[in-house]
């Protein structure tokens, strides 16, 4: 069974590089959905089950923190792990993401290895039936 992931970022180029990075991280069979902000993400999540949400923090209309809070209030969506990928680099903000329920936090600029390590850890904790493949330490695009 391939994983389904929702990538949330107001930047089209950033969504593109996040998806490419995840695919190169051993999840080449994963299916990807995309949203430009937290509101759009919730609209998608109302109709689609995903295994992982990868979200930016700083977005118009609804930011990543608000998205996590809305998901945690929901009986179904609270179970979906959220990985935050953001430029926010303060220790306080990083702690706040985890406190609000994020499963992980990656700071931009990121290396492909950082994304791979976090997603493998998160999805490994969710279940082992996914399609993650063994990969080299260094990732090529």
């Amino acid at each position, binding site marked *: 069974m391939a994983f389904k992931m929702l990538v949330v970022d*107001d*930047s*089209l*180029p*950033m969504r*593109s*590089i996040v998806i*490419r990075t995840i695919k190169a991280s051993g999840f080449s069979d994963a299916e990807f959905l995309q949203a430009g902000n937290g509101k759009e993400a919730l609209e998608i999540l109302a109709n689609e089950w995903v295994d992982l949400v990868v979200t930016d923090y*700083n*977005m*118009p209309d609804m930011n990543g923190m608000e998205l996590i809070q809305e998901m945690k209030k929901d009986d179904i969506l609270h179970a979906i792990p959220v990985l935050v990928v*953001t*430029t*926010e*680099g*303060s*220790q*306080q*903000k990083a702690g706040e993401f985890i406190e609000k329920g994020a499963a992980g936090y990656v*700071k*931009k*600029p*990121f*290396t492909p290895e950082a994304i791979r390590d976090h997603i493998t850890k998160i999805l490994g904790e969710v279940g082992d039936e996914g399609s993650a493949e063994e990969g080299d330490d260094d990732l090529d*695009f």
Partner: protein
Amino acid sequence: MKEALKKAMTTSISEVLETMFFMTIDVNENAATEAFLGKPGEHPFASRIYFQGKLSGYFLLMIPEEILRVMTETFMGVDAADVTVTHLNGTIQEAINMIAGNTFSTFDNTAVFDLGIPELIDFNLIPSRCPKETPEDHFLLVETFAGNLGLKICFTTE
């Protein structure tokens, strides 16, 4: 404090361009803004992002189209022929977002800086001096294999 901020900007733009765009750069910390602004015939793309916190003000990133196209091809993994203006705009906005966030986490990762949403601005409307509300400034001339780009900050302390 100003020197630490300038060092953080230099470190940040180097990390962002090398990690996300695979570009090797040299940073000239002593160039004047005029070294980049107002060259005849040039109309670089420009983006601004406001911030608030221990410091308040904005960053400006200015990139000639030729360099931005190379960055976009690398960043998005698309062929040159498939790069659109939307892609170019998105790339410069994401670049300044990462540079600003990384600058502040390098400068002081115990402080919280609230970043705005990156906006596109007309290069021709950029004043050479910072506004009086945020009079302090730094300018970095960033030299790449494809030409120069500029990073400027206008700020005030709280």
